[in-house]
C-alpha cells in the first residue's frame, strides 16, 4: 500500500485535485480559465520535449497546435452537418494529435538536421509562412475570421453533450493527465534519454551509434503529436480556431511559459503554464502594463534563473528531503532577501504604472490610484517615492543576496555532511 502511494501518489493526488476542482470553482470564467490551463499545460510540455529535453529552440511550434485545431474544427463541423463519419468528441484529441504528428513528421524531417540557431530560424520561417497562408488558403483557414465550430454534435452517450463547460473541463482534465503521464514516461525511455544526450552533446551521440537527426526528428514528431492534441482540445474548448493560434505570438507565449516555469525540469512547464495563464487571465484587468511585466519576468529568468521558477524550488529539494529543520536557520536570511526584492519590485511597478498612466490617459485627469492610494501622477511625490523604493530595494538586494546565498550554501553543506555520514 505504502509502495503504491510512494509510486503513484503524485498522479493520484493530481487526479483527485482535477476531480474536485469544479466543486470549489463554480464561475464559468474560472472554469474556462482552468480549461485553457489544461490545454496549455499539454502544449507547454509538448514544447518542452523540444526545448528542454531535446535542446531545440522553436519559434513556430504553434503551427502544429493550430493546424490540428483547424482540422478538428472542420471535422466537428462535418459531424454536425453529417457529411463526415461520427467520432466521439472525447476521442477528437487523438485525431488532433495525428494531424500534429503528420505535419511534424513532414516539416520535422527538413528542419531537424541541425539544432541551435538554424533550427530556430527554420521554425520562424515556417511559422511566418503558415501565418501568411491563413489568409491565402481561405477554404481551410478562413482568413482572419477563422473557423467556428460546435462541440455539441452527434449522439449523446450517457448524456454527455459537452454543452457545459464543466463537461469540457473533465475532458481536458482527463486528457491533460494522460498526456502528462505519457510525456513523463517518454523521458524515461531509451529515446527520452538519448534526447537529453543530443541536447547536451550532439557530437558525441553520433559516436555511440545514434543519428542526431533521427532523434531530433522523432522528438519533433512526438512533440508535434502532443501539440496537436492540445490544439484539438483548444478547438473543443473555445469552439473557434483563428490565425492567432498558429502565429508567432502563440509560439512566443508557450516559450515564455516553458522558460519561466523551467525548461530543464519536467514540472517546470506545468508550473509556467499555470502561472502565466493565471496572470494572463487576471492581471490584465488590473494593469495595462501586463505584457511589459511578462517580458521583464521572462528576461529576469533568462538572466538569473536558468532552470526557471521550478529550478528555484528544486534546488531546495535536498534540504527538505534530508533535514527539513535546516529551513529554520534560513528563514531570516530569505526573508531579508525576498523583502528587499519585493521593495525593489514595488518601486519598479510604481514607476511603470505611473508612466503607463501618464502616457495612455485620455483625459487631463492626473489623479490615479497606486497601491490603493490616491495620488497625483503629475506631482513629483509618487515618482520620487517609487524611485526611492526601487533604489533602496536594489541597494538592499546587493547586501541581502550574499546572506541568502550563504545560508543556502551552509544548509546544502550540512546536508552533504549528513549524507556522507
Amino acid at each position, binding site marked *: 500500500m505504502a509502495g503504491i502511494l510512494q509510486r503513484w501518489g503524485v498522479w493520484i493526488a493530481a487526479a483527485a485535485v482535477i476531480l474536485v476542482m469544479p466543486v470549489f470553482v463554480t464561475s464559468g470564467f474560472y472554469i474556462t480559465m482552468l480549461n485553457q490551463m489544461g490545454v496549455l499545460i499539454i502544449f507547454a510540455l509538448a514544447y518542452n520535449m523540444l526545448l528542454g529535453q531535446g535542446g531545440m529552440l522553436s519559434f513556430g511550434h504553434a503551427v502544429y497546435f493550430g493546424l490540428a485545431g483547424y482540422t478538428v474544427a472542420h471535422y466537428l463541423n462535418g459531424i454536425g452537418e453529417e457529411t463526415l463519419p461520427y467520432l466521439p468528441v472525447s476521442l477528437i484529441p487523438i485525431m488532433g494529435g495525428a494531424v500534429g504528428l503528420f505535419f511534424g513528421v513532414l516539416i520535422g524531417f527538413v528542419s531537424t538536421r541541425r539544432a541551435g540557431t538554424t533550427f530556430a530560424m527554420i521554425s520562424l520561417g515556417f511559422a511566418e509562412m503558415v501565418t501568411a497562408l491563413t489568409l491565402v488558403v481561405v477554404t481551410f483557414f478562413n482568413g482572419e475570421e477563422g473557423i467556428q465550430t460546435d462541440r455539441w454534435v452527434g449522439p449523446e452517450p450517457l448524456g454527455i453533450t459537452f454543452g457545459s463547460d464543466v463537461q469540457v473541463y473533465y475532458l481536458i482534465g482527463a486528457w491533460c493527465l494522460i498526456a502528462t503521464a505519457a510525456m513523463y514516461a517518454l523521458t524515461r525511455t*531509451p529515446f527520452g534519454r538519448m534526447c537529453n544526450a543530443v541536447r547536451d552533446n550532439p557530437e558525441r551521440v553520433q559516436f555511440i551509434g545514434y543519428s542526431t537527426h533521427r532523434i531530433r526528428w522523432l522528438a519533433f514528431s512526438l512533440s508535434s503529436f502532443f501539440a496537436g492534441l492540445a490544439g484539438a482540445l483548444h478547438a473543443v474548448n473555445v469552439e473557434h480556431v483563428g490565425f492567432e493560434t498558429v502565429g508567432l505570438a502563440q509560439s512566443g507565449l508557450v516559450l515564455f511559459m516553458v522558460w519561466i516555469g523551467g525548461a530543464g525540469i519536467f514540472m517546470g512547464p506545468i508550473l509556467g503554464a499555470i502561472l502565466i495563464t493565471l496572470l494572463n487571465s487576471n492581471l490584465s484587468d488590473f494593469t495595462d502594463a501586463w505584457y511589459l511585466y511578462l517580458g521583464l519576468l521572462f528576461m529576469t529568468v533568462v538572466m538569473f534563473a536558468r532552470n526557471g521558477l521550478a529550478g528555484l524550488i528544486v534546488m531546495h529539494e535536498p534540504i527538505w528531503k534530508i533535514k527539513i529543520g535546516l529551513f529554520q536557520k534560513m528563514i531570516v536570511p530569505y526573508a531579508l532577501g525576498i523583502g528587499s526584492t519585493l521593495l525593489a519590485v514595488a518601486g519598479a511597478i510604481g514607476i511603470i504604472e505611473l508612466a503607463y498612466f501618464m502616457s495612455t490617459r485620455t483625459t487631463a485627469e492626473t489623479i490615479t490610484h497606486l497601491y490603493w492610494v490616491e495620488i497625483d501622477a503629475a506631482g513629483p511625490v509618487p515618482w520620487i517615492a517609487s524611485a526611492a523604493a526601487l533604489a533602496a530595494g536594489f541597494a538592499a538586494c546587493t547586501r541581502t543576496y550574499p546572506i541568502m546565498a550563504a545560508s543556502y550554501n551552509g544548509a546544502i553543506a550540512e546536508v552533504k555532511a549528513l549524507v556522507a555520514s
Partner: protein
Amino acid sequence: MSTTAIELRSVHKNFGATEIIRGVDLAIEQAKIHAIIGPNGAGKSTLFNLMTGLHPLTAGSIHLKGREISSQAPYDIARAGLARSFQVTNIFANMSVFENIRCGMMWDRGYKYSFWRFAGRQRDLTENCEAILQQTGLTSRRNVPAGLLSYSDQRALEIAITLASGADVILLDEPTAGMSRSETTQAVDLIRAVSDNKTLVIVEHDMGVVFDLADTISVLVYGEIIASGAPEEIRGDPKVREAYLGAEVD
C-alpha cells in the same frame, strides 16, 4: 590467428588547398594495442576523425573488419563496431555517470530509438552498466552528474562510454592528456585491463605510456607514416629518431 581489424588504404585528406593526410596505408591487427605517435600537427587527430567518419575522405578507403566504411556517417561506423574517445573530454555533462554509460550502451543492445519501454526497467542494461562502472572504478561516482567529476574521472568515463558500446575496435585519442603522473599510471592500468580481446588504437604524446602499452607503433609525420613496427623497432629506427624522437627515447 591474426586478422586485420582496421585497414587504411592510401588515405588522403585535404582541407581546402592544404593536404593534411598524404597517403596513409595502415593495417592494424585484431586484439592488439596499436599506438600512433608523431609531432604536433602531424595529422593524428585528423586520421582519427577520418576513421570515425567525422570528415569525409578526399581519396583512398578505410575498411573495418573487411567492410568498407570510408566516408560513412559516424553513427554507421559506430554501429559497425568502432568506438572512440576524445582528446578534449566529450561527455554528457548534465547526466549522471550511470546514464552516460547507459547511453553509450543502448544502440548496441538493440534499444535504438524505442520509446515504448522504460530504460530503467531493462535489467540487461543496468547490469552491464554496473559491470562497466566496476571495471572503470567509477562505481562510487555512479549518480554524480558527469560535469562535476574530477578530470581523471571524466577521462575514465570517456573510456567507459566507449567500452559500453560493445565495439571491439576502440580508438583512444590521448587518453592521458593533462593527467598527473599517478593519474596516468591509473589510466594505463585501466586501459590494459579493458583491452582484453579488443583492438585498441591510441594516439598519445606520453612516450612512457606508448612504450608501456603498445604492441605496435606507427609514426606519423606531416601526414605520412614514416615507420611502423614493434616498439623496439621504432626505438631503433634512425628515421624516427631523426624526424621526431630525438633525444627523448632512452
